[in-house]
């Protein structure tokens, strides 16, 4: 590959012209094809933002190997997802119910009693974990969902923030 003479290079100081804009269009098209954003990501973000709660701690997917599987729609088999935040690890197992809904079993670590809300495409659901940190939603509508672990009672002063998971597709 021969390198063009530097003297022939278009000036870096010149204003953008039509060729520049076309080149940038070409780069955009290239990456839109080579590395597209997941089509449902904006919808999941909109869903999360509806919380509008500033006193939150955001949990992240803990296991990289699982990440590709999480947004997949219509996966019928059971799967396990782990979320980590600074104060809490949330593990959930998602199973398909015969009626088309999903069953979600979860565990909190360290084990503790917390109020846990599941935002769904329909009404939010609410349960409480037991002393071992276990909780279960027997029937959750398929679609976008998000877990919110509410602050514990006042006697546990330091656990004052809600922990939310990224929105996921059940």
């Amino acid at each position, binding site marked *: 590959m021969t390198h063009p003479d530097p003297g022939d*290079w278009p000036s870096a100081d010149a204003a953008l012209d039509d*060729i*520049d804009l076309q080149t940038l269009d070409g780069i955009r098209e290239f990456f839109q094809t080579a590395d597209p954003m997941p089509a449902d990501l904006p919808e999941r973000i909109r869903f999360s933002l509806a919380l509008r709660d500033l006193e939150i701690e955001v949990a992240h997917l803990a296991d990289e190997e699982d990440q590709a599987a999480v947004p997949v729609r219509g996966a019928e088999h059971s799967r396990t997802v782990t979320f980590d935040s600074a104060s809490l690890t949330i593990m959930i197992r998602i199973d398909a119910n015969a009626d088309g809904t999903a069953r979600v079993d979860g565990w909190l670590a360290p084990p503790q009693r917390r109020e846990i809300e599941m935002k769904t495409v329909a009404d939010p659901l609410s349960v409480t974990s037991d002393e071992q940190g276990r909780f279960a939603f027997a029937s959750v509508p398929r679609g976008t969902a998000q877990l919110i672990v509410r602050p514990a009672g006042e006697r546990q002063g330091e656990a004052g923030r809600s922990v939310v998971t990224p929105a996921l597709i059940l």
Partner: protein
Amino acid sequence: MDTEGEEHGPVTVRANQPDRSARIASLVSAARAGDDDALGQIVTELSPLLWQVARAAGLSRGDAEDVLQTVWMRLLSHLDGIRTSMALTGWLVVTTRREAWRVRGAGRKLLPADQDWLSALPAAEPGSEEQVIMDDQRRALWTAMRQLPSRCQELLRIVAFVPRPDYAAVAAELGIPIGSVGPTRGRCLAKLRALLAGDQGENPR
């Protein structure tokens, strides 16, 4: 701007841009007042840009999703200081980039397997004649991009997704030198153009 050229793609896009800035500004002020739908429209409009920012910083697809969720949540507490489309785009790009660096610094490997877009050379066996021309253009661009320093690859990838009226703000935030009247070509784009020009007619494939 040039209204005569509305039939032609890029010109049409630019002709619509002033409207876009005003529309984004009003969406921001509606979002600040608590309008979730306005906020949602902003998310839909700018997430594809932020996706490329996060991926260009070397994140896996899963990490990029997490970072976008985090950045948009953080925007909620910064809306008060943001009035214009330029300020919004600039803040979002810089915050996404910083958050991406933070996540990547947390012990993750530099280049995840799904990040290797450089191996995504367009298919060599094309169908139609149009496909041949398209593939040739893409291959030339891909070949030229690959020869740029990685910093230039990242910058051009980001800037290509920035709405045009916001070029100047984003360029300034990213530390790209720009002139006093508006965005200039800059070193990266000038180099890419030189490489593309140098490739013409001498590509053995």
